[in-house]
């Protein structure tokens, strides 16, 4: 199949960048989208043009490294990661527009590669249970109702790709943050630090410059792992409860 590719090219973070159009005459419907870009890059290198840079690693839909905003949608037309998208999802002769994630908190590094380290910093702010290695109870001393464990698991499957931010008109990271907050709010292991966790993670999210949530649910619609906006509702509840009754507030005598 033949496709026309309109791809965002940007030499580095300070370059202004712009679209460039390429013709690809030998795509196959069985290729993954990234393999199609590999083929384009081979052609470019042979012609002496710099290849298109994009992030990718596992190519099996789990590491969260691939991104790409394809024809106006993060990860393209299917609700999956770009690496799992195949060319059979496109028509012969189609023009495909490829851009990086667009968000202030995800600055472009080069071409289609963005800096998502803001996500790491949010996790560092509180996305953990404070236990050291060793000295923990036997695993079966913490029984967890199956329904709760399953709900926590569903939240924990977030791959941190950033599609939720890219899909959101406000570039909000609420779905990402809510997935981790939910996992630990649901599980007994997360209870002792429940309040500080949500406060710290939300504060970091705001400090990184992500936008607010206005409930458009675009994030859920585009999340390759189907993380539900129920988690955002839970995040909001957790946050207000924490702010209204934080331990510091209690220890301070409610002042």
């Amino acid at each position, binding site marked *: 199949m033949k496709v026309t590719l309109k791809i965002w090219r940007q030499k580095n973070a300070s370059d202004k960048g712009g679209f460039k159009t390429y013709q690809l005459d030998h795509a*196959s419907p*069985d*290729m*993954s989208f990234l*393999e*199609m870009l*590999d*083929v384009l890059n*081979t052609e470019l*290198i042979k012609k002496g043009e*710099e*290849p298109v*840079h994009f*992030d*990718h*690693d*596992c*190519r*099996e839909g*789990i*590491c*969260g*490294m691939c991104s790409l905003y394809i024809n106006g949608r993060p990860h393209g037309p299917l609700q999956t990661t770009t690496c799992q998208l*195949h060319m059979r999802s496109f028509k012969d002769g189609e023009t495909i527009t490829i851009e990086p994630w667009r968000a202030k908190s995800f600055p472009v*590094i*080069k071409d289609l*590669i963005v*800096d998502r*380290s803001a*996500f*790491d910093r949010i*996790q*560092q*702010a509180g*996305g*953990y*249970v*404070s*236990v*050291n*290695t*060793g000295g*923990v*109870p*036997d*695993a*079966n001393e*913490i*029984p*967890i109702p*199956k329904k709760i*464990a399953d709900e*926590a*698991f569903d939240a*924990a*499957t977030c791959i*941190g790709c950033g599609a939720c931010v890219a899909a959101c008109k406000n570039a909000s990271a609420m779905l990402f943050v809510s997935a981790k907050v939910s*996992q630990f709010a649901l*599980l007994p*292991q997360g209870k002792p630090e429940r309040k500080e966790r949500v406060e710290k993670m939300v504060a970091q999210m705001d400090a990184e410059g992500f936008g607010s949530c206005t409930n458009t649910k675009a994030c859920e619609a585009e999340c390759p792992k189907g993380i539900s906006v129920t988690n955002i509702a839970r995040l909001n509840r957790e946050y207000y409860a924490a702010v209204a009754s934080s331990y510091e507030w209690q220890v301070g005598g409610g002042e």
Partner: protein
Amino acid sequence: MKLDSKIPEGPLAEKWTKHKFNLKLVNPANKRKYDVIVVGTGLAGASAAASLAELGYDVKAFCFQDSPRRAHSIAAQGGINAAKNYQNDGDSVYRLFYDTIKGGDYRAREGNVHRLAEVSVNIIDQCVAQGVPFAREYGGLLANRSFGGAQVSRTFYARGQTGQQLLLGAYSAMNRQIANGKVKMYNRTEMLDVVIVDGKARGIITRDLVTGKIEAHSGHAVLLCTGGYGNVFYLSTNAKGSNVTAAWRAHKKGALFGNPCYTQIHPTCIPVSGDHQSKLTLMSESLRNDGRVWVPKTAHPGLKAKDAANIPESERDYFLERRYPSFGNLVPRDVASRNAKMVCDEGRGVGATGLAVFLDFSDAIKRDGKKTIEAKYGNLFDMYQQITGDNPYEAPMMIFPAVHYTMGGLWVDYNLMTTVPGLYALGEANFSDHGANRLGASALMQGLADGYFVIPYTIGDYLAGMPYEKVSTDKPEFKEAIEQATNRLNTLVNINGNKTVDEFHRELGLAMWEYCGMSRNEAGLKTAKQKIQSIREEFWKNVKILGGANELNMELEKANRVADFMELGELMVDDALSRAESCGGHFREESATEDGEAKRNDEQFAYVSAWEYKGDNQPEVLHKEELVFENVKLTQRSYK
């Protein structure tokens, strides 16, 4: 060179306990005076970085991905073994030890494997405490399943995403230490060399993949947790970025390389669809519980899955059921893989390339109903359909073996130290615990065992004897290493030839797959050696890399890794040549029984191969660590 495995004396079950007591300790107040460098942030690296920082050491951690959470441990599907015996079905530390030694075809150390089985139970406790959402029963306790043909249910799992959940657990523990200031994390940073000062590993050279800046980092010890080298075959189930560079550079600086030819080939992967193929996707081997593997009795070139129904039952060869009546489709990974290759070599393979066999669920669907099959394998069937466009409920799947894991790696002693003092290797990067064949659900166990429960003890013994003084990166050893790394990258970008890095990598992969893959013979291996040498020679004259070394340049990154894969490939071939026996995943055609099954040779080959680098274009020297079996009796595997 005398290889000392440092396996403690005494009865098997007491070795680790005694050893822990005998190890020297570092005073809690002095731990902060030591800097530890951790390269790689998968299960082994993240768990080690977190645990060492918790103890009080200052840690610097490095990953080439944009975040430590991307490391390829994340892709492990099936589960993690632990000898908890929660199911009351007869499991024990000794049984897990025994199964792992036997599964590795008696090419691993008893002492190491027993320790692995011992700490397996602590891993599950640790992960649960971190909030890892393992599968649970309705009563709220942990669920287990039997995995990879094990006769007990000892595998803990989190749907088909166990690796992801365990890695995110270790990542979260490390994040806590990053926030505490005890771990300094370097993302998008690749290690280019290890620096040795006065005979000890004292630092590394790295490249910032965004700016291209080459830097030196000094420390009191260096931990390589950099994963396996399956990508030497170009096509594998590894992530695209997985590479051998850190381990290989360490090898060239004096660390011996153990059992390089031991590769695991997984039988149930989605076949190659064309020349554009960039990686292979694993389908869980649980599919073989209900799927029947077959090809037509006579060649039908290009047979499509949708036309499989036209082949009458009498014209089908269910070759695993035919050859192995008692195990049938559930024979171990290496046996299933080899047989698939054999029928394809006979010209009876199916699909457009002829490099595939059918995995047929029609009988299971007839027997149990579509609903039952959907409940068991729904997500796998969906994944298959997404990648291939074929519907496995209506037509058989097509599968073919693919490189999945490398049991070989840097040689380490019982303390996980390589032959370079102060240089450690953890997880898949070392050779230690899986022998010639890794059992399912054991990779996650070993990565976390090394990081959470072994290195925190053993590193203290080494550091306790080290002065606190930091080594300056102004020392000539660092300057020289920086210069060498810089020169190499500049050489690569200035070759300006005609072929892309991927073209060379594919050629290398093809030679490795053809001659050093599922089955090997002397003539083929000798051919491979010549081929690899000529590919390598051409590479350094004719590779084409655009852009410079002082910017984000993914072609340069790839080239730098592929150059190391070429050298490693040759060593793998040498190792395969020297091991003239069949064992585990290593099938040597000259060493077979009359009916074509693998024949191990314990008299001559019950040793670990450990290769010593002797300089560019010099033959490497083989050292042998004899394996001593005091507790288990060596038996031949039979699945007839």
